[in-house]
């Protein structure tokens, strides 16, 4: 009995050895195949990444044998990776700072940051001062703004997000002045939070907000300082709360990187940019 058990185990072992051998062969050959192609890596902003991915797919289709790898991790990662050479191209959803002049920015589109409210909220106009007062806790009830008697839930973004930086910079606030009730990570979490709370106010990318609003999610974009927050006003330059979406590189570009960046800035990808509800470049 013990003996037969042992035999069985032996057979199992032989099978697993065969499996292992196959695996080893795969590991040896698969990288061999992929190194035969040209490779380009992009990392960074979760706002830029979906657009970069679409552009990359089209670029790959037009240029067989090229593989483009897109990974998210935020604008800070895009800066870091481009700087350290961990990625060929970094994705950054803001203009470069003074401390980042060692990098070159290539703008591929523009995004606006829109304030969002729950669609049941009767308030549909806010001024910069009112938004500042709401976010610093000076106005805590919608009644004070002509709305219903309902407490305001301030939704803010976590530190390090470029939307937060742009928001603070535009309103001249420090993050420690903001009296938030909910802090969120990405745009989707922000939209879900506002859509689930009639008293909430938050801010996300205009493209994302416009898209979700059209899909029937219960959010709306109030008019800020008399300017409607929409793709059209961002394109015309009337909407002040906007930011460039950049591909950043360090030093001399490889031929492939140069071709990809030129392609990403060309009219050939306008439909992709608009498909992501960003504003395409003027050609």
């Amino acid at each position: 009995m013990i003996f037969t058990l042992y035999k069985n185990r032996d057979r199992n072992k032989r099978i697993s050895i065969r499996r292992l051998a196959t695996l080893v062969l795969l590991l040896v050959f698969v990288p061999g195949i992929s190194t035969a192609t040209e490779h380009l890596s992009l990392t960074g902003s979760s706002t830029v990444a979906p657009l970069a991915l679409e552009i990359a797919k089209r670029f790959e289709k037009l240029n067989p044998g090229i593989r483009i790898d897109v990974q998210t991790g935020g604008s800070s990662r895009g800066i870091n990776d481009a700087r350290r050479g961990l990625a060929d191209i970094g994705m950054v959803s803001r203009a470069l700072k003074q401390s980042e002049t060692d990098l070159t920015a290539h703008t591929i589109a523009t995004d606006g940051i829109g304030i969002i409210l729950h669609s049941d909220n009767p308030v549909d106009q806010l001024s910069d001062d009112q938004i500042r007062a709401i976010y610093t806790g000076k106005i805590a009830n919608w009644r004070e703004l002509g709305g219903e008697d309902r407490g305001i839930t301030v939704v803010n973004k976590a530190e390090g997000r470029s939307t937060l930086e742009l928001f603070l910079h535009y309103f001249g606030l420090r993050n420690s002045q903001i009296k938030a009730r909910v802090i969120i990570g990405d745009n989707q979490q922000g939209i879900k939070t506002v859509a689930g709370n009639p008293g909430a106010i938050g801010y996300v990318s205009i493209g994302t907000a416009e898209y979700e609003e059209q899909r029937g999610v219960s959010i709306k974009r109030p008019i800020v300082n008399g300017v409607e927050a929409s793709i059209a006003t961002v394109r015309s330059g009337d909407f002040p709360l906007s930011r460039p979406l950049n591909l950043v590189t360090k030093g001399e570009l490889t031929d492939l990187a140069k071709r990809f960046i030129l392609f990403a800035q060309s009219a050939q990808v306008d439909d992709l940019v608009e498909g992501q509800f960003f504003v395409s470049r003027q050609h």
Partner: protein
Amino acid sequence: MFRGNIDRLVEPPLRLAGFVCAAILLLILLFLIKEAAPVLTGGGWRLFFADSGWYPMEGLFGILPMLVASLVVMLGAIMIAAPIGLGCAIFLQYYAPPVLAKAFRLLLSLLAGMPSVVLGLWGLTVLVPIIGSWQPPGTSLLAATIVLALMVIPTMALASASALSSVPGSLMNGAAALGLTLRARICYIAITSAGAGIRSAALLSMARAIGETMVVLMVAGNVVQYPSGLFEPVRVLTANIALEMAYATDLHRASLFASGLLLTLIVLALAWLAARSNESSKQYG
């Protein structure tokens, strides 16, 4: 001879496996210390407890509110989960008919292995709006505590059940022979003699609760502040790391690693207490 051969054959790989496990823990600790070094060596860690808040962009790194929030959420969760889990264990061990007990145990094991993010999704879409319709915004200390309690109940129940099952049968039979009712046997014999095991079950559940990330991130609201009420949003240390690590650089990054180190030490301390508690139970048995 046959058996001796097997032993000799099996020993080195087993030894290696044991060594690898220990080495991984050690390497993780070393890695955390190395990454946190800029904060630890520069004396920056004192800021953790001195700064008024957590605003890395402004150079403020006070983690105390998040540490307190972590501990409060953990204690709240175990206060809910311990009685329910112990109740499940007693039911499983002494009241459930064998067929039901088997099914119930299977259910608990399934629950214990359920991906926590599923529970978090439920919390975000069901529990948070319910609390929010009553006390907005809903993402709060209460939501985090409830969801975490649900998450550790199976752990608590299974570990307590195994502690109860190790109570010597002779003790229970002796008590029955003395005419004690089942209720009295459970209250005075089983629970007292399995006390150390139950304590260690609670400690292990606490370790699981304080290390949990996604669930808390989704329902706690993530505002850095001292917990001042059940309906106030809080941010725990794990959620802080998950929210900001991808975007952090320099000192900010190092202080996130330092808070990771702190968390690891808390979990190690809880595990050590649990092990000690278990050991003393063995001496008793």
